């Protein structure tokens, strides 16, 4: 039995793509000096994150960034949002536990009440799941779907935790998926290992362990990390092990299922976990780095949003005028891997806009 769940969706396309990051730039050399001391430059080199975009906590959220990305896409493309009959919001950092972000986005964007709207709670593999669900939904509704994907993981990464302090940036994105005729079949591969949920987890604040009077206190843990119960805990080695064992296999499996080789693809779009991991996976898959766009250097790891941010930032000129064949993979909390083989363009892609904050 295969280790991957295989899915295929025909006759859908991405009609537009946009990304938005906070205007506030955090320089990691300055930010990380107190925790990493004279190792800071080595840590920046290893992770690849020189600077990040961070929005102010309790002021700007993943909803704000993603709605801005959608508004910017509407403004630049002239796309008629009356064609949209569904909103999916991929995030693990919503405004509230209830209601979800998607319903508020429907209101803020002035979309029709005849709209299906819901969130998908997934971290780094989330965009690929979002594409899959949006594609099926576009076929089912025979209308366009607005896929919003935004995260503010910097807000739950402890600045005193060696494993996560410098990694995370904030971002919001918007993609429009619409039904069409005669597009290439999108092919997806999914894998989940829920036994490793503790490898990447925010231990407090949900209903397994609700927030109490100690949740916001910084404590030193046996792994050496100093963080709060409401901060993310990452077992970097466990995540790394999962990634190296499963992401290349997932991409290989997709290529077998689609009878393709690396030469058939214009782009390998990988979740921007850290630069080392991206380079190693590319090398193992025999993709030269000129086919592997990276943005972790300037935007950090924005979890599920890294793939659309990277496409918007690095490929917007190309996909505005031509069709590209992509193979993409997101991987992280769950633990979870989701990969996809699909085409993109020509379509409106705005690049990355800034949210003033």
């Amino acid at each position: 039995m295969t280790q991957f769940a295989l899915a295929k969706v025909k006759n859908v396309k991405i009609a537009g793509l946009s990304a938005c990051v906070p205007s506030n730039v955090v320089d990691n050399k300055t930010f990380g000096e107190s925790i990493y001391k004279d190792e800071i430059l080595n840590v920046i080199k290893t992770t690849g994150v020189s600077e990040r975009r961070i929005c102010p906590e309790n002021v700007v959220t993943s909803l704000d960034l993603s709605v801005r990305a959608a508004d910017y896409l509407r403004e630049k493309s002239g796309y008629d949002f009356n064609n949209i009959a569904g909103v999916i919001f991929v995030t693990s950092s919503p405004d509230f536990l209830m209601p979800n972000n998607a319903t508020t986005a429907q209101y803020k964007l002035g979309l029709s009440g005849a709209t299906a709207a819901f969130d998908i709670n997934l971290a780094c593999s989330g965009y690929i799941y979002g594409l899959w669900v949006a594609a099926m939904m576009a076929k089912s509704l025979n209308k366009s779907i607005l896929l919003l994907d935004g995260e503010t993981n910097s807000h739950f990464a402890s600045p005193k935790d060696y494993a996560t302090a410098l990694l995370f940036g904030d971002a919001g994105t918007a993609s429009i998926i619409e039904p069409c005729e005669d597009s290439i079949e999108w092919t997806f591969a999914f894998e989940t290992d829920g036994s490793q949920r503790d490898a990447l987890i925010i231990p407090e604040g949900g209903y397994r362990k609700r927030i109490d009077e100690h949740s916001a206190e910084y404590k030193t843990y046996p792994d050496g990390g100093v963080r709060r119960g409401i901060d993310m805990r990452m077992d970097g080695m466990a995540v790394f092990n999962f990634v190296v064992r499963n992401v290349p296999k997932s991409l290989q499996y997709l290529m077998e299922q689609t009878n393709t080789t690396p030469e058939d693809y214009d782009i390998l779009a990988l979740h921007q976990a850290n630069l080392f991991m991206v380079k190693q996976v590319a090398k193992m898959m025999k993709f030269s780095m000129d086919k592997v766009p990276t943005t972790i250097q300037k935007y950090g790891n924005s979890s599920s949003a890294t793939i659309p941010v990277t496409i918007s930032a690095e490929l917007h000129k190309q996909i505005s005028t031509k069709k590209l064949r992509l193979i993409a993979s997101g991987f992280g909390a769950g633990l979870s891997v989701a990969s996809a083989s699909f085409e993109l363009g020509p379509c409106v892609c705005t690049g990355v806009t800034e949210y003033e904050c």
Partner: protein
Amino acid sequence: MKKKIFSIISDIIESPVDETTGFQDINSLKLLQIIMALDEEDITIPLEKIPLIKSVSDILKFAQIEG
């Protein structure tokens, strides 16, 4: 090559190493720094072997020279 590997690892963990040195106290970021530094010297550890590294002797076992 062994001498070079010892030197690279030693520079990063800031203490002398030999074949018996274990990585129990090394976090994942440090291990990645070691792998990257070796890579820059054309000493490659295959990606699938990285999770198996628990000591300096594992690095000696898995290290491949490129070029």
